């Protein structure tokens, strides 16, 4: 009995201890958890290390190439397939696939048919992808600028050399933001008006459009220029004054389209600046598009590359989709392009109108830029889904200049030449022809520089009288095809819409048909409109 009582007492103590234990653990602060993974950090923790600033800078650049931080199949934007939402691939789809330069075989892929037949609606996922991806670039840039204000740097004890280096990073990031805004201006005529002064979250920011957007971009670039490293003096793939000037040249050249006011003189002046910056045409045209184009000499011509790497920078857009897509079926010529024999199953062919730029005049048989594969293939594409129709090209390659292979057969090493010196020469010539001043004979020389590089000698040279705007439009396509310029060029030359120039499947039918003028701009995606009531839809949609 005595024992039992003792037991009871012990028991009471025990039960009480249990309950008390419960109360003790009831520490509500346990709900404040922090990430434990070494790859996932709170913002403040991330910026504790000095190297973080360059990693964050790499993050802003990487959005031009990568779709997520650790997986080529993953994406930090939603609403479309990861690879389709990659920056360069989106640009290529809107600037090239919507023109005479290329056709996509698999029209069951969402949005593709609408894109390449110019019948897109505001629900088209490809358009959504580009609007979102470019806006994401702006958001990343803004975040970088917020995290690197002098107050923030001071509070984290960053000073001295690193602080001044970060000053350069900031200027580069402003150019990257301007680049994204430029793409939005070119494709949509407007952009969300958001800067580093806006909060992260869900604010329905206003829109900035037309001349206002144009002026904002020009101002940003002009302000960033003095803080940038001189042209060709920065590390490979980083923004320098050359990139900023190139963007300015593009803006000036298309100013009439963007603002109604021509600015060819300004274009000429910036081009002159670029021409005097030490860039040179690489002797072999095709070196610009090879796996080692960061080292084979093409780096002297490429003003701004977007990096792709089979081992280190894997994505399903960029040159990966372009090179894999070039591979023909039934040719299975992937090996010669440095990828798996079957590539992506005959994704791309060129439309007959583009092919004729090289085939109508036998002169172009000797043009190094003519990479058409025509054997056993009809030039016309009667059935978009038939990979055996239409010519192939082999311009981009995952082989190196010495015949080697890229580091991987799926993901390519070839950097995408977003801006190239040859384009500067052609822009100069065009601005001269459009009455911006400059020198007509220099313009001819520059064009012939490009022709001599293409033909290996003077056999392709032209004379002054041949240097016309019509010639330049064709020459730009011969020189710059698949480099995301074509739609912009066709618009500037006034033949993208309407019926003056019909190409296969323009507007839908194989024979091509007129498309209305409003299609010079893409619609703001429905999803973007719905989540931000301060955005307005473009006319016609």
């Amino acid at each position, binding site marked *: 009995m005595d024992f*039992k009582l003792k*037991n009871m007492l012990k*028991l009471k103590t025990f*039960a009480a201890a249990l*309950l008390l*234990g*419960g*109360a003790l653990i009831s520490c509500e602060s*346990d*709900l404040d958890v922090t990430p*434990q993974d*070494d*790859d996932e*950090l*709170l*913002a*403040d923790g*991330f910026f504790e290390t000095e190297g973080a600033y360059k990693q964050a800078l*790499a*993050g802003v*650049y*990487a959005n031009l190439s*990568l779709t997520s*931080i*650790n*997986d*080529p199949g993953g994406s930090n934007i*939603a*609403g479309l397939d990861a690879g389709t939402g990659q920056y360069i691939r989106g640009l290529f789809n809107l600037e090239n696939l919507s023109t005479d330069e290329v056709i996509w075989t698999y029209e*069951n892929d969402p949005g593709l048919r*609408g894109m390449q037949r110019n*019948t897109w*609606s505001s629900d088209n996922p490809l358009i*959504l992808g580009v609007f979102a991806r470019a*806006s*994401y670039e702006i*958001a*990343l840039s803004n*975040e970088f600028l917020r995290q690197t204000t002098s107050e923030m740097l001071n509070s984290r004890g960053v000073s001295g050399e690193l602080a001044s280096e970060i000053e350069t990073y900031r200027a580069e990031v402003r150019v990257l933001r301007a680049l994204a805004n430029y793409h939005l201006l070119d494709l949509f005529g407007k952009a969300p008006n958001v800067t580093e002064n*806006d*909060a992260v*979250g*869900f*604010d329905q920011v206003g829109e900035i459009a037309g001349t206002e957007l144009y002026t904002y971009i020009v101002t940003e670039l002009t302000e960033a220029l003095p803080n940038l490293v001189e042209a060709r003096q920065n*590390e*490979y793939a*980083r923004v320098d004054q050359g990139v900023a000037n190139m963007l300015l040249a593009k803006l000036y050249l298309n100013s009439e389209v963007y603002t109604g006011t021509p600015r060819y003189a300004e274009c000429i002046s910036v081009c002159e600046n670029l021409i005097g910056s030490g860039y040179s045409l690489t002797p072999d045209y095709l070196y610009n598009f090879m796996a080692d184009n960061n080292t084979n000499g093409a780096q002297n011509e490429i003003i701004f590359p977007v*990096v792709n790497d089979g*081992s280190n*920078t*894997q994505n399903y857009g960029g040159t990966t989709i372009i090179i894999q897509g070039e591979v023909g079926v039934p040719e299975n010529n992937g090996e010669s392009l440095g990828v*798996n024999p*079957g*590539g*992506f199953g005959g994704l791309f062919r060129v439309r007959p109108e583009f092919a004729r730029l090289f085939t109508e005049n036998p002169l172009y048989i000797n043009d190094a830029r003519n990479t058409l594969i025509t054997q056993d293939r009809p030039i016309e594409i009667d059935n978009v*889904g038939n990979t055996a129709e239409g010519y192939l090209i082999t311009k981009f390659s995952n082989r190196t200049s010495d015949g080697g292979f890229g580091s991987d*057969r799926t993901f390519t090493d070839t950097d995408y030449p977003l801006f190239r010196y040859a384009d500067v020469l052609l822009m100069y010539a065009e601005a001269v022809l459009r009455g911006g001043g400059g020198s007509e004979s220099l313009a001819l020389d520059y064009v012939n520089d490009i022709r001599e590089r293409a033909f290996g000698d003077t056999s392709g040279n032209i004379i002054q009288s041949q240097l016309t705007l019509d010639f330049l439009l064709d020459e730009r396509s011969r020189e710059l095809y698949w480099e995301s310029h074509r739609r912009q060029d066709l618009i500037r030359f006034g033949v993208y819409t309407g019926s003056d120039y019909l190409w296969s499947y323009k507007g839908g039918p194989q024979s091509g048909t007129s498309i209305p003028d409003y299609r010079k701009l893409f619609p703001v995606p429905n*999803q*973007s409109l719905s*989540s931000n009531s301060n955005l307005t839809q473009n006319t016609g949609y």
Partner: protein
Amino acid sequence: MKILLKGVLFFLLFLPMISIAQSTVSGTVVDATGQMPIPGVNVLVEGTTNGTTTDFDGKYTLNGVTDGATLSFSYLGFRTQNIPITGQTNLDVTLTEDAAELDAVVVVGYGTTTKKDLTGSVSLLGEKDFNKGNNVTAENLLNGRVAGLTINTGGSPGAGSEIRIRGGASLNASNNPLIVIDGLPINNVANGGRSVLSSINPADIESFSVLKDASAAAIYGNRGANGVIIITTKKGKQGLKVNLDSQTSVARLTDKIDIFNASDYRSLINERFPERTNFLGTANTDWQDAIYQDAFSSQHNLSVSGNLTENLPARLSIGRADQEGLRKTSSFERTTTALSLNPRFFDGTLKIDFNANMSWERNRFAPGVEGGAFQFNPTQPIYDPNSRYGGYYEYTDANGIALGNVPRNPVAQLMQTQDIASVRRYYGNFKVDYKLPFYEPLRAVVNLGLDNSESDRFYEIDRNSALGTNALEGEELGVRSDTDYKSSNRLLDAYLVHTKAFGDFNTEVTAGYSYQIFENQNFTTGNVRDPNAAPPELTLDPDVVLLAYFARGNFNYKQKYFLSASIRRDGTSRFGESERFGYFPAVSGAWQLSDEDFLKDSNTLSLLKIRAGYGITGQQDIGSAYDYLARYGLGNTISQYQFGDQYYNIGQPFYRNAGIKWEEITEYNLGLDYGFFNGKLSGSLDFFRKESDDLLSQAPVPDGVNFSNQGFQNIGKFTTQGIEFVVDYNLASTDDFNWNVNYNLTYIDREINRLAFGQDILVQGISGGTGNTIAVHREGYAPFSFFTYRQLYDTAGNPIEGAYVDVNGDGILNDDDKYISGNGRADVTMGFQSSMNYKNWDFSFNLRASFGNDIYNNVNSGSAQYANVYRTVLNNVPTQVLESNFQNTPDVLVSDYYIENADFLRMDNLTLGYTFDEDKMGKGTLRLWTGVQNVFVITDYSGIDPEITNNGVDNTIFPRGRTFLFGLNYGF
């Protein structure tokens, strides 16, 4: 924890100290209808823990019964009898079956109640209600048995299931009910196992409680949104009992996709593709036959229960399951052991329950080769002696190197892939329930729970496989990776229960605290054979901490008027400081009309009870937790960016939503329990309405202001309404013949009321193109509604390829012309069970039916077009192409032509058994039985099985076989 263990040891030491000696009572318990002895009846001296159970002859002997005590005889499914002892030493008892099982103990959150006291919508299933047959996973014991509960189990061995209570409550967050085992809510992470429930041996389960409505589930607060399934495992009982259960089975394929056989295929090519006849081979291969096998399986369970010492009932079981899958190489093996110690002290005022379960699972996963099998050219052989790919035929170039963009030999893919996961899991709980001696009405309960699992998954594709890394370059590396998972889940519940009657007014108040922490990590090597693959990666998930205070009061007056109210204050680490706590209240009441004077004496209407409930539950289990934190991610080595000659790991901010919080579900339930003819006919009827608000939706974000264009936001609302009807009828109940049938029906109607910005959300990817979707979330319609073009037909009724109705009449056919053409979810589901006994024979079967569910036949839509026949090589296509005559997949992929009605009636199982009783056996009883599972399916659906998950998109499935079983059960 250490202190706790010491405490336990301390008590175990003093166990033998407690003993009392009084008189002995013995007798036999039989059932009223058949006068058959009932084994396993609980015999208990009321108010004590002194008790025993009847043996296989229904006999019991109970020591230590004092004069004046009351003996209580209880058995699940029978009315409890309480008999006062006035000197008897022999007491034979007859129990009457109780279809309504009013006295059955129902486990609810943090406590138990009886069916009679229930005010919410709760279903209880005990062992005798379980489905018979080859049930390897726990949830299959329940399938078709509970109105409002749907279970869709895959065809792979040990497969997991899509479990939905009242259709689920969420669009984008989890729709899985919370599963609680002996008080421990488990984590919904399978980590290498087949499913969260696959490591649990169904033979160790005593009962399920399914908490369906919010008034019952709200005690689980922000985890109760999708309902709760509470699993109670078997415990130790007085009296030695040994049970051996063994079964073996074989499963066969029931159906195949209709494709061209080799000779028809030759005719097809000769007729339609004469220029491709050179691609025809000489073999006759049925690729679907080649990838499947007859699957043999067995299950053995042995359990022993009894008391180790006088006051220490215990149960020990071991179980073993071996299953083969129909798809070659797939298998599931599981060894389990469960130990339950259930000591009772101080006249039962201190109850300790200790449950420890261990399980070892070994899964071999077979890659899904159904698509390859129906596409592969039937005139090509399986084997090719000249092949460099392990002797398997593959399409190659002139050098014998595999071609790209062509189908791979599906048999080779099966045989050359080893994907094996070994899972070790231990889980259990330690529960102390103490009636405080100094204040009788108060009980203190502490429950500690633990669930740990570790698994490693070995993955290898043979070096000589055409699927391996660099295989197309002639450098065959195969694929090799290892993945280790570790997860742990620890729980502490502490609560007080105060029970007191004030005259006819009975009260029970429970209040307590719960703390639970989940940890999860995995390590993967990545493909070590691929020089450019992602590097090894250790991923540590942030801990999930859940913390709650809860209280509940149950009140009744004269056992006629019932009221129950509960509230939980619940916090989760998944949300930010301002949003992490929420209150989840519930209230419900019931009126036992049949106990009112005007009905009391009616034998016709023996039970009538009206129930009404209201409650709010939440859902905090969202896919991307921790969006509230300002986080940066660091990229891995394959996602770097180059500056100069160097590559840099990139740092990018993640999408942020500082205000993210739980989904809130408000549910109303109105129910009726009825019984006629003394319970011969009984059942229930429930109406419910669930409003899911603040739905966590993957919704658009204004571009440029956040780090994605979409992210989880609390925008959206949808409503689920439904009716559940259950009837149980005891058709015959005589000495020799018993027949019971049970039928349940559920009607569910779901509608999205609000989406972010009113925007349609395109969902449900399909094959045939990259990134295509077939369904839509749209306001005013059910979630995952099929969204297609409307097919045009010619006058002969044949579909016109690529011709659709211009729905909006604008003259352009584009995305704006899609319309809502069906839904994969059923409107009505039904279950029917019949069980019959004649003398020593028993016979039972189950039927399940589903109406109003459609299927998008992606097998046909993505493949049954002539243009797919020749793609680099010749491919087979479904013979459906003969009907449609379609050429090009892109033109027809999103047509409503491929939406099919998938109503079905399925007989899940059929069992026949014979019991040799003790007269014949000498000792113990032996039951032999045989059965068939998946007996038949009646449906108009043209694919191989109308019962699919994937929101109604049939893109080939792991087929369910028809299983023939034989089993024996021996016990004494």
